[in-house]
């Protein structure tokens, strides 16, 4: 009996994973997409057509859909509009439309992330300095930070009364009004994605074989020529990968824009959220369908490109690193001076927001030390008024959902990693089906879950409804398990397959050899995946904010967003920064676990 169960464990686990995906991902998302093309049981493209022909969404390009024969004219008009927009000629953003603007800010954010991330890769791969390895591992930190908390940090740093204005005020500059500008949104996106660029390019740079450079030099190439002809071609793939990922992420951006840009800088995702809140579900569905099509297309490009890169990894001697602080003379070296300037920018962009959030949470309006904001959190806790957002349930909910997500996402992610490593026909296709959740926005998933499972669905005359909290845990698990897979699958792939063969020839079933041999050997990847799953659940905002609507299953990020709007303590961000600091502490805790067990994230 036990043997039978063990033999079926892997196929059963896979079936369960697929079933979960179908119920909480494909069915809800499918229903959103179906809403975009079905109305009253008839197929209609009206909602999608409405969106595509509305200049508000597609800008001047709506001619493409309203008047296909006039396309060349419409296209020229749209390109002109984009051009005017790019060069700052004051045209209303509607000239390129919501989609145009979303792509535009994603492109700007990608450029900014590359500009901010590349020097970091140069520093980390070419210079040796105390704490280099720590900084290198810290580059995964932004990825697990809740977006809404980062937004609060940026408000605290760059707001009118923020740290940034305080500091430049000391030297007689400013104040700078940064909030609700495109610039601040782009910088916040760079906060998230520049470390990704740094991480990927550093990995590529470290795998450049020094003998290749030495060969080029011995054949007469100058250091610059050797860099251009040997090193750059090996860095480009990683740079392109990072750029593509950054573009996908920022195209689907939500909490950053919601909190820092507001509706006047709305992206597709923010507008989608606004439509849902106004209960204009057909329009929301159409928006979601188009957005999903675009992001799936981009993700497909990314996966295709990534698959082509696999074989190029070399095992040579890496380039030697220079000492960053070699001697007093090295302080006058222009390279090192430039890196020092870069260090200041890094402090402002990465350390600044988090530090200001913590500082603001204990600083009163007059600049004095205060614990009022934490007292306010406690008073919210004891308040009996209905609709109060209490901090303790938020913390407890976050932790409960986090643990629930972990318990669900870990087996799902491991099963998918096992299947992905089997070189069987169709495993690539299966992997694509199983990785799709990476490419669909949280709002679309949340909307789908809300409309299907939470509001109820009728099967065989029984109305089946799922409670908000359960839907939240499943939504989080679907968002988190790809990261478990990403941590576990490469480690499993590096294991000698003959270890499993040996175990099986000694009488172990496939499942037992997974438990006895493979998982212990990839333990660090499993624990890192678990920490990611937990951190992603704790920080998830997009689908939670929809599913927690009107119920008491709000989490820390949702509570944080509500506190941003709560100005009962005056114009300061106090309550939000206090809540943000609590959230930071919890997230940092799970990051410590990641770092302790040597986890890594390799996209």
């Amino acid at each position, binding site marked *: 009996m036990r043997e039978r169960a063990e*033999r079926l464990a892997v196929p059963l686990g896979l079936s369960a994973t697929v079933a979960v995906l179908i119920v909480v991902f494909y069915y809800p998302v499918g229903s959103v997409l179906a809403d975009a093309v079905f109305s009253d049981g008839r197929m209609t493209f009206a909602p999608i057509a409405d969106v595509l022909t509305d200049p508000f969404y597609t800008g001047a390009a709506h001619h493409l859909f309203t008047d296909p024969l006039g396309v060349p004219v419409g296209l020229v008009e749209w390109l002109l509009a984009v051009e005017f927009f790019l060069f700052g000629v004051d045209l209303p953003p509607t000239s390129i439309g919501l989609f145009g603007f979303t792509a535009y800010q994603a492109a700007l954010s990608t450029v900014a992330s590359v500009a901010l991330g590349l020097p970091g890769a140069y520093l980390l791969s070419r210079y040796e300095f105390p704490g280099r390895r720590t900084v290198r591992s810290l580059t995964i930190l932004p990825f697990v930070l809740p977006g809404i908390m980062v937004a609060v940090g940026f408000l605290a740093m760059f707001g009118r009364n923020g740290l940034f204005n305080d500091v430049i005020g000391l030297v007689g500059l400013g104040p700078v009004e940064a909030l609700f500008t495109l610039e601040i949104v782009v910088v916040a996106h760079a906060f998230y994605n520049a470390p990704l660029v740094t991480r990927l390019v550093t990995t590529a740079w470290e795998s450049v074989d020094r003998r290749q450079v030495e060969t080029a030099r011995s054949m007469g190439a100058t250091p610059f020529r050797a860099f251009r002809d040997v090193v750059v071609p090996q860095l480009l793939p990683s740079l392109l990968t990072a750029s593509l990922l950054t573009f996908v992420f920022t195209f689907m951006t939500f909490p950053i824009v919601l909190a820092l840009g507001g509706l006047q800088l709305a992206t597709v995702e923010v507008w989608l959220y606004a439509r849902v809140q106004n209960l204009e579900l057909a329009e929301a569905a159409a928006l979601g369908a188009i957005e999903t099509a675009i992001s799936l297309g981009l993700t497909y490009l990314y996966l295709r490109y990534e698959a082509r890169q696999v074989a190029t990894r070399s095992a040579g001697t890496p380039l030697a690193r220079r000492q960053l602080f070699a001697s007093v003379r090295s302080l006058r070296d222009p390279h090192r001076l430039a890196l020092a300037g870069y260090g200041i920018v890094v402090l402002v962009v990465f350390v600044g927001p988090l530090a200001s959030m913590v500082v603001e949470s204990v600083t009163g309006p007059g600049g004095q030390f205060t614990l009022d904001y934490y007292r306010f959190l406690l008073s919210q806790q004891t308040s009996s008024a209905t609709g109060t957002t209490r901090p303790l349930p938020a913390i407890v909910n976050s932790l409960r959902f986090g643990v629930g997500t972990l318990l669900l996402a870990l087996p799902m992610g491991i099963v998918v990693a096992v299947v992905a490593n089997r070189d069987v*026909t169709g495993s690539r296709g299966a992997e694509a089906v199983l990785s799709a959740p990476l490419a669909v926005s949280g709002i679309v998933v949340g909307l789908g879950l809300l409309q299907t499972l939470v509001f109820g669905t009728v099967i065989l005359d029984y109305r089946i409804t799922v409670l908000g909290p359960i839907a939240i845990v499943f939504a989080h698990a679907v968002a988190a398990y790809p990261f478990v897979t990403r941590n576990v699958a490469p480690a499993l792939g590096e294991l*000698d397959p*003959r*270890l499993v*063969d*040996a*175990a*099986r*020839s*000694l*009488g*172990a*079933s*496939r499942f*037992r050899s997974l438990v*006895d*041999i493979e998982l*212990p*050997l990839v333990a660090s990847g499993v624990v890192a995946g678990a920490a990611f799953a937990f951190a992603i659940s704790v920080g998830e905002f997009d689908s939670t904010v929809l599913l927690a609507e009107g119920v008491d299953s709000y989490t820390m990020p949702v509570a944080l967003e509500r506190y941003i709007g709560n100005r009962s303590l005056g114009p300061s961000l106090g309550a939000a920064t206090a809540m943000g600091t609590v959230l930071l502490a919890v997230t940092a805790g799970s990051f410590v676990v990641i770092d302790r067990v040597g986890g890594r994230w390799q996209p």
Partner: protein
Amino acid sequence: MATVTESGVELDGVSVDFGDVSALNDVSITVDQGEFFTLVGPSGCGKTTTLRTIAGFESPTEGTVTIDGEDVTDRPPEDRNVGVVFQNYALFPHMNVRENVGYGLRHRDPPGGVSRRERVDELLELVDMTGLAERDPTELSGGQQQRIALARALAPGPELLLLDEPLSALDVRLRERLRVTLREIQQSLDITTVYVTHDQEEALAISDRVAVVADGGIEQVGSPEAIYRSPASRFVAEFVGDNNVFDRTVQGSDPPHVSIDDQAVPLEAAPTLSQGDRATLSIRPEDLSFHERDVSITVTVQQVEFLGDAYRVHCEWGETEILVKTTDDDIPRETVTLWFDVTDVYVVDRSATE
């Protein structure tokens, strides 16, 4: 051993495909019980795939696999009761020596009614590794790891031992010593053994019978002496040991003979050849001599290699390269006459005229 009639392993018409690539094509082998049977061939020939199919790691697209009279074609590896030793040993790095050797006993009871601990000690004694039970595999030398891998494979008392190039990662001297040990253990346990190697010398040295594998099929099965002395194909003649292989047209029959440097050489071992057939002939380098024998050929000496116990002389005979192995000290350095006996000429391949 030859008197045992029941087969240890039987492959019947086995084919294995990897996608569009055919790795094994209609392979049939019978290994007797207690026999040491070796699959030898160049890399990529299908010998390891054959072994993995017996172990259950690969599924045949056609044919059946029988172990001890039972059809195991559809059984997973864990239900086949075979012990496998891998080229890189595949010891579990997170377990010490005792846990490695004892791993199979978690799933199968130790044979002979002893406790698991006693069984592990038995096996460690068998491979002469007593005292290293608490070590980690990474602390052991290659040869020691090899012995532990063998002990682990034998611990559950398998009916069949499969060895996939177990010695190829070791240096030559250790390899030669361990193969003697391996053979002794195999004979003392009287366990049916299938051994895979690319090293034809090792195959000849260790086996009861040898199968030469090429291009996913079996070229020849036989005793080491038969494989060496009477190769059944040009491939076997050239793969097993050094050899001189060349083609001639048969002239006349009763007895059929060929012309070598204008001398008629009768092919007494192949009476069925007839006038006009194409025959592929072989003469081993050690059967060529600088002293007078039946037949002579005139060659030019190109290179002389000193091997320690003999010389290997590279010669040119028209278009054909000829190898000579000799213990003579004074090897001429120019055009010279080589001799061989008629009985040392083997017909390894033939094709009738159209």
